[in-house]
């Protein structure tokens, strides 16, 4: 596993030279953005144990935020981080609900995401309503518009790698340990002096900001935003990415994102059946790979006596 990260990074960096196909690069950019989104939920669910069904809301805040800010003349390099911060701040609205547990937290975040979706759909003056926002500017670095799909891909892949490393560092720190402890036993965490609500809220804000970053990149990658991309389905899709990747595994979340983005594309050949097959694949993976994709190698290697 020690070589996993550098090898993956190298392969990801060399991909455009190996496969200079615009559509493929477009897809891989989508994978990188989805990976950021999945990493955000993975941190919330895998490290702090909070299930959010409202990631689409923060994704939407980031996307529309960055699109509107660049539309108003702000440079890309300022608008994207600002949009991520804004998405993080928007999650502060939900801080009171972090004291809810399990399904109650999930349903409260779900409610929030439905409200956000309706705002996107109905507030035409701001979001363009059902027609959406068109003509969003391309990503730009140092005043240069990135016209080459390979450059956009590199940017998104590099940011995904940064998010991955950042969240890994966070999980492996005093803060991450505390969040992890709270996930396992809140009473014991409190008795050890941990400020449980504060730490859970911080995880929420971080996860929302990461989702917002993904949304901002999405806006400039696709360059068109409509409400459909921010419905409850998006939240479910993120959850599927994290779970098929294996809850608790950051690398798994990236793998899960790749599967969720690429599988339906590969299945275009089967036309109308593709979502049917996708649904079946999700069920099948749950049935046959207990730890998600991250657990598959172990499941294949597993010997009967290896399990306690």
């Amino acid at each position, binding site marked *: 596993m020690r070589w996993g990260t550098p090898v993956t990074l190298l392969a990801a960096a060399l991909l455009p030279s190996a496969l200079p196909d615009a559509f493929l690069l477009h897809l891989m950019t989508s994978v990188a953005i989805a990976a950021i989104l999945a990493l955000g939920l993975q941190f919330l669910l895998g490290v702090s144990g909070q299930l959010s069904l409202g990631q689409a809301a923060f994704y939407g805040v980031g996307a529309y935020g960055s699109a509107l800010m660049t539309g108003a003349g702000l440079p890309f390099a300022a608008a994207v981080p600002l949009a991520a911060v804004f998405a993080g701040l928007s999650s502060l609205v939900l801080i009171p609900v972090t004291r809810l547990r399990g399904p109650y937290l999930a349903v409260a975040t779900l409610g929030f995401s439905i409200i956000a979706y309706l705002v996107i759909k109905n507030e035409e003056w701001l979001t363009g309503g059902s027609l959406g926002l068109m003509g969003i500017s391309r990503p730009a670095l140092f005043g240069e518009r990135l016209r080459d799909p390979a450059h956009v891909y590199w940017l998104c892949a590099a940011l995904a790698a940064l998010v991955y490393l950042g969240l890994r560092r966070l999980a492996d720190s005093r803060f991450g340990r505390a969040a992890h402890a709270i996930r396992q036993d809140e009473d014991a965490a409190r008795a050890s002096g941990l400020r449980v609500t504060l730490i859970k809220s911080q995880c929420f804000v971080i996860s929302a900001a990461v989702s917002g970053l993904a949304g901002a990149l999405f806006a400039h990658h696709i360059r068109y935003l409509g409400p459909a991309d921010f419905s409850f389905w998006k939240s479910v899709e993120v959850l599927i990415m994290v779970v098929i990747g294996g809850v608790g595994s950051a690398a798994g979340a990236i793998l899960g994102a790749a599967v969720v983005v690429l599988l339906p594309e590969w299945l275009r050949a089967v036309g109308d059946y593709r979502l049917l097959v996708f649904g079946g694949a999700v069920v099948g993976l749950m049935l046959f790979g207990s730890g*998600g994709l991250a657990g598959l190698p172990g499941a294949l290697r597993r010997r009967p006596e290896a399990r306690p």
Partner: protein
Amino acid sequence: MSGAALLEVAVGGIAIGCVYSLLALGYSMIIRASGIIHFAQGEVMMIGSMCGLSALWLAPALHPALVLLAGMAAGGVLAGAMELLVYRTLRRRRVPLMNIITATVGLSILLMNAARLGWGSEPLRYPDLFSGAVEIGQLRISPQLLWIAGTGFAIMIALQLFLSKTRPGLAMQAIAQDPDAAQLIGINLSRSMAGTFAVAGAMAGAAGVMLGSLFFSFFEMGFITGLKAFVAATLGGLGSIGGAMLGGILFGLIETFGAVFVSSAYKDAIGMLLLIAILLVLPQGLAGLRKRGR
């Protein structure tokens, strides 16, 4: 707005509330027995709706009660089969609950797209099961609404009787409260669990026929309705049967009145805002109120 018009809105709210209640009951029964948030519940409803419609296509003169039964049977068999084929296997393999819940989402996608292939992607109109209008003085109430509210209440009462008076019903209650003890006194866990899913599925099937006859049947109909019913179940307190009934009807009323008096574009948001507000005061839903009172 006149009193008569208000009453009409209220009847509409109660009717749609009954649909939510029936679905919410299924969520509650399943989460209580197995801990699973059954996200495919809305799709079970949709399949029930489609099957009721197909029964009507085959026999246009079919009595509405039989259409309802067809929907319930389809929902019951489907949900029971999902438990036997998928969830039971997952439970036996002791996979984390989150994975089982993801499997329910997978099944939900599967069913939705199967229905799209089977019944097409266009909304399908139910023939009017009832025509004319009931007039009480100035009041005109659509018979559909009365039919739905009446049947909804009848089914909920029947469910209560089933759960509290019959052996299989009591066995389901027992496994929900304490599976280990229930097995010790000789209750077949697998059978009762499958029964719980089947009953929950039948409730969903009934809700599907009702909702279909009110508007139309559509392969995506289960999605948002299922979500709202889940919210209703949470509102009532997940796992509480009485709470689910109350939560569904309350949600239907709030949504209907909200659409009329506040904003129809934000009709779904009103219910959600209220939900979040209620959860903040009562983190366990309305059922927490009773516990707190004790």
